């Protein structure tokens, strides 16, 4: 019975103290939390860490879900904001800026084509500010429309489109720099 209940209803039940509803809701969406966290942070351990922290805080936070938007919209927002916050924390500790990825060591080794693509990805992601990265993670990573991403981030759809054009600009700049090196 519970299995067919909508996320929104489950959230309502959880708010009223239904532990099963809460568990089911989290089981449904842990992967969403982890994937978005990974796409923002670029490292498995950091993503697992953040996902766990979010899960731990969710019992308290779920009270804030008002049922106006879809539950996933609300959850995406929680994750995206938490990830951005963590990126900023990281940056204040490291001079390296907003790190993304874990294969830096590979760069000096002979890279296969697959690795080369990964290195390109890391390079690109590292260039993006947390806001742009968050947007990329939602629009490209989770294949959401600009309208959906706008709702999640509580921005206008135009801002999302503008951010994506900034991303494209960044990618083109990287391509140009690579050409210049060759």
């Amino acid at each position, binding site marked *: 019975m519970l299995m067919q209940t909508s996320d929104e209803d489950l959230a309502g039940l959880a708010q009223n103290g239904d532990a099963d509803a809460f568990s089911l809701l989290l089981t449904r969406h842990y992967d969403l939390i*982890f994937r978005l966290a990974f796409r923002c942070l670029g490292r*498995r351990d950091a993503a697992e860490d953040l996902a*766990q922290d979010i899960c731990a*805080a969710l019992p308290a*936070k779920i009270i804030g879900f008002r049922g106006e938007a879809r539950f996933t919209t609300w959850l995406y927002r929680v994750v995206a904001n938490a990830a951005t916050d*963590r990126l900023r924390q990281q940056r204040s500790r490291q001079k390296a800026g907003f790190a993304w990825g874990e294969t*830096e060591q590979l760069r000096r080794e002979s890279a296969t084509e697959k690795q080369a693509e990964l290195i390109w*990805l890391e390079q690109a992601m590292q260039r993006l500010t*947390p806001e742009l990265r968050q947007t990329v*993670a939602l629009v490209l990573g989770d294949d959401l429309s600009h309208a959906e991403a706008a709702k999640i981030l509580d921005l206008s759809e135009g801002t999302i489109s503008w951010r994506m054009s900034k991303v494209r600009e960044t990618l083109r700049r990287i391509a140009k720099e690579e050409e210049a090196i060759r």
Partner: protein
Amino acid sequence: MSDELDRLKAALAAATPAPDPEARKAAIQLAQKNFAGRQGLAGGVRPISDRAENRGGFVRGVKDMFHNFGLRPALLATSSIAVVGLGIILVLPMDNLKPPSVNTGLQDAKVESTVNQRAKTEVKPVEADAVDNSMAPASEPPAVMMESTPARPAILDASPSPQALSAERGIAGAAIGQLAKQAPDDSFMRQEDRERFANAGVNPLEITAENPVSTFSIDVDTASYAYVRSSIMNGALPRPEAVRIEEMVNYFPYDYPQPDGDVPFSTTVSVFQTPWNSGTKLVHIGIQGENPVFADRPPLDLVFLIDTSGSMQDQNKLPLLKQSFRLLLSRLTSEDKIAIVTYAGSSGLVLEPTAASDTDKILAALDRLEAGGSTAGQAGLQLAYAEAEKMAAKGRIGRILLATDGDFNVGISDPDALTKYIEQKRDSGTYLSVLGFGRGNYNDALMQAIAQNGNGTAAYIDTLSEAQKVLVDQVSGALFPIADDVKIQVEFNPAMIAEYRLIGYETRALAREDFNNDKVDAGEIGAGHTVTAIYEVTPIGSPAIMAEPLRYQNKIKADASGELGFLKLRYKLPGESNSHLLTTAITDGDKSSMDARFSAAIAGFGQILQGGKYIGNWSYGDAIALANANKGDDPYGYRAEAVTLMRLAQSLAH
């Protein structure tokens, strides 16, 4: 045309791993536990309609969330190391060390529930100030979260009032009024990096002809090493000012020759080639404290003074502290007595002096501890000293173990006044040691001052294995002083040594005349402790001399002794007020033990972390090679861990 974005999309999809089932399970279980914890709270969950509109609410929710859980539990840190190091296999003996009474859950339910109660605010979308597409500036405005004001209307603050907390614990409150004023600043501010360090810059090079005498107090603290480790394991090189080389060197147990005769410790001096400079030598002074038979030790009166302020609620603070104290309990006997005093909004006696064999009672008292409220270190300290004095009797050793993240906010927050108080109490015969917990709030300067003035040690505990090292492996050393006020003075011979510098001990420098002044306090040596001090010296005529000789100064007379210098050491036996003097001539040589060379590797590593003013091109790679070659038996794996840290630091530095 958007093939760039398609490429990014495909690459991102390829790079995203599937969630790890174990991590997934752990996270969901934790959430379920917290959910259950919330339901058990008095008053339950607030009705949804009872929400106030508050823009700060979401921000605070997120901040709180990070504050509560932002620090990676120790076990996860271990797993992440393997990833960062790419191929380095790190084995920390965590699991073996876990006492059986600790369940594997990552959170303590009680602490959790207090925490969650305060996070009860509405989550409302943050309103970006209508960032219009056409109006958007070239660079985007910073995220709204950072700009929001830390508004915190009282109505939203569902955290139990300090008064209520104290009442629950049956604590007679003293400084509650003051606390109430202090409390509201917490959540927003505290996630900033508030760590403060007590370093006085790197010791400069001294010219022997001008300043031949170097005087310092020994230091058996190890806090800096643990701090450096925790920083590197979190993926960031430590700030240079957080690196205190003598504490890194002294973190490791060395096997210097055992003392014989009346002196409770031995002193071994060796001179050998400096690894990082072919033109200089290291003068290595190793002190080994005697190791009394454990069973013969006098009984202990321990007062645990435990910080239960709100900032202690993190997983690596209060919960870790409780586990650590459980470890310590296993090493005490029925002769020993324990009392527990807490301090937060108000201070209170949680456990009256109890025989250490009554573990049920002690563990129950530990379990009742909860984090909450602000910090009133001073009042707690007074109470702890009062308890210690109550227990004091002839033939017993009294020690206060202060466990804190260093947040002494309320009461006398002036470090000078606080240390003066501790100084007065030191003379009553009660020692004070400090155990630092957690990051982000750790007030190193204050901890140092307190431990130094309380004749105790300061250690920084970041993992259970560190607790094992500090509290159990070295329990005898940490708890039984064998020599007090140990001072070292070295006079270098200007006929042999052109320049010298003391590596580390910056915060322990003493004036030359203080050496013979028994009123001047210095560090203590505990049973079995080793203390190491290293000078780098530049012989006359070496190409490595930095300072040009002066033209108009008197020529230095040749000295037939051939000694490089003269080492003098003063100490007091515990309880005595007059010091004893030991002297040794330092003669040239090129012999070093494996222990000495390993300590040189650590000193070099520390200097690299500090910026490496005096070590030329000597690199992490060199430090790794030197440390690796001199690991020796390494029964506890401390040295192997140090090599791992060096490797991590090497990759972080690139």
